[in-house]
């Protein structure tokens, strides 16, 4: 007599749980129906939700200004008025002697500085990467020091070093008998640009050296051993083994150094203000002068666009030229 009761109980319980499960399923289904989201759509939404803060900042403070800059470049835009003038800003640019001079200066800086950055940082890294880890990090820090110090502090001290009367450079060169009379380094259009390139170099090799040391450390030692067994000398090992393996790093360094050199600004603004006689004026400095000192926003915007196009073209060429040698 006991059994059927028990059976009933169990049955009851079963249906009960079944019902609750069914209810849950139903409610989930209906919720899904209300939002009408497939699994894929839900995944999309979650992905976008994570991106919202970054996209908001990026859109407002990078993307929108890019479009606005492009738009402004077609206007005669000053503090007072704004009139559409089509391509006139661009036409005026290429008849502007000071702009052309600045463009040549900028190109000179890039073409001199970038190869020197590569050669110097590679040479240093080849010497440093074999050292013990303590001295390795000391040297890494030493070459990164000018970057950390910041452009203002670096510029202020270099201005003193270059000072025609109390500067160390003139003193040392005179003591060594290399020059007879003090040179007004930053006031002489023959030297000013070179002086700026030297400071640029000291502030630009820090990151490349860190990168080269890291990639040199990643090279499989068996390659080098194998080359040694085959009787290769150290130059051959460098040229045939290390250099090709470093190619991706070199490409990256070439691109970032080019972008940085194209944008050289603070050194020039703080040291020479583009002078003497525009011999150290660069495109970026001119953009600043036109926009923030003279209020010619449209004209400055057009300059910015030209500079961006130059950098873009350079980067593409570099990828084409170096990319061929890159083997991952």
């Amino acid at each position, binding site marked *: 007599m006991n059994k059927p009761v028990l059976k009933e109980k169990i049955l009851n319980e079963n249906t009960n749980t079944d019902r609750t499960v069914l209810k849950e399923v139903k409610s989930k289904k209906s919720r899904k129906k209300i939002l009408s989201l497939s699994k894929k759509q839900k*995944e*999309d*939404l*979650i992905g*976008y939700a*994570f*991106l919202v*803060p*970054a*996209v908001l*900042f990026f859109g*407002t*403070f*990078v993307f*929108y*200004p*890019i479009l*606005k*800059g492009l738009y*402004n470049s077609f206007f005669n835009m000053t503090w007072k008025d704004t009139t559409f003038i089509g391509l006139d800003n661009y036409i005026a640019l290429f008849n502007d002697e000071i702009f052309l001079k600045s463009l040549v200066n900028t190109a000179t800086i890039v073409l001199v500085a970038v190869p020197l950055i590569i050669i110097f940082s590679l040479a240093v890294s080849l*010497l*440093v990467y074999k050292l013990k880890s303590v001295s390795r990090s000391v*040297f*890494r*820090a*030493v070459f990164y020091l*000018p970057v*950390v*110090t*910041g*452009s*203002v*502090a670096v510029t*202020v001290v270099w201005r*003193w070093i270059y*000072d025609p009367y*109390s500067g*160390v450079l003139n*003193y040392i060169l005179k003591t060594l008998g290399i020059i007879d009379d003090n040179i007004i380094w930053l006031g002489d259009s023959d030297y000013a640009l070179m002086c700026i390139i030297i400071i640029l170099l*000291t502030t630009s090799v820090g*990151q490349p050296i860190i990168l080269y040391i*890291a990639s040199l450390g990643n090279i499989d030692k068996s390659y080098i051993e194998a080359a040694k067994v085959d009787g290769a000398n150290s130059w051959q090992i460098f040229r045939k083994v290390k250099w090709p393996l470093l190619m*991706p790093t070199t490409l*990256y360094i070439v691109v970032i150094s080019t*972008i940085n050199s194209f*944008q050289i*600004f603070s050194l020039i*603004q*703080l040291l020479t203000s583009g002078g003497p006689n525009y011999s150290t004026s660069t495109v*970026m400095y001119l*953009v*600043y002068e036109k*926009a*923030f000192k003279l209020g010619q926003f449209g004209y400055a915007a057009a300059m*910015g*666009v030209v*500079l*961006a196009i130059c*950098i873009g073209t350079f*980067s593409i060429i570099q990828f084409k030229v170096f990319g061929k040698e890159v083997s991952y």
Partner: protein
Amino acid sequence: MKTKTKLRKILSVLALAVVAIIFVFPFYWIITGAFKIQEVTILETPQWFPLEPTFENWIKLFKNPTLIWLRNSFIISISTMILVCITASLAGYALAKKNFRGKEIIFGIFVAAMALPKQVILVPLVQIVNQWGFHNTLLACILPAVGFPFGIFLMKQFSETLPRELLEAAKIDGCSEIGIFIKIVLPLVKPGVAALGIFTFITSWNDYFLQLVMLVEKEKLTMPLGVALMQQEFTTNYGVLMAGATLACIPIIIVFVLFQKNFTQGITMGAVKG
């Protein structure tokens, strides 16, 4: 043969030492210059070490609102650092581990914008900030700096290494998306966040151009801007300028030395895979 390689080794270490001295010298010159009396700093024969150390430069320096400049620099750098770490770790994780439509396009736009010279957009940026009424505030130096996508790129690289099984296991255990991010993702990408944080702190402290175009009033300036302003005022009174330069670079050098390892990792992670 052996003596020849030894000689070469000695020569190369010597060359390295000379170059290292040239790199450290400007820094040495800043610190020692800050304690030299004015009469010495204008001599043609340099005094290699301050023989009569003085605080007169520092007294002159602190006649400016120096502490406010320092405070402003700290506010800008720390706020930028926090905001960049939050936005970049969220976005980097999504770009690395989530599947959603338009992912490649969004990432592509970020990368393309990274190659674009950020200074080119400063002119329109100033106009926008002006329109919205927060020109000449510290906020104008913070928010735009958060927009630059370098951090997203870096955090994506870091997040790629997260084990997919772990994330899926957490999901099966009923962990919410935010729970997964806070409890599992963040602890694992912590080295990346640390690297990004320090990198951002240093770059925003030294972001002279952005500060120059955004901040106008003397009380709103940052430490680097303040030194630049003093350069116009004092021109060749190098002692005072060196004291200012010392104050502008010491905080950042301390940060760098303390976190050098994280920092190096961050720089290499962004460029060298693996």
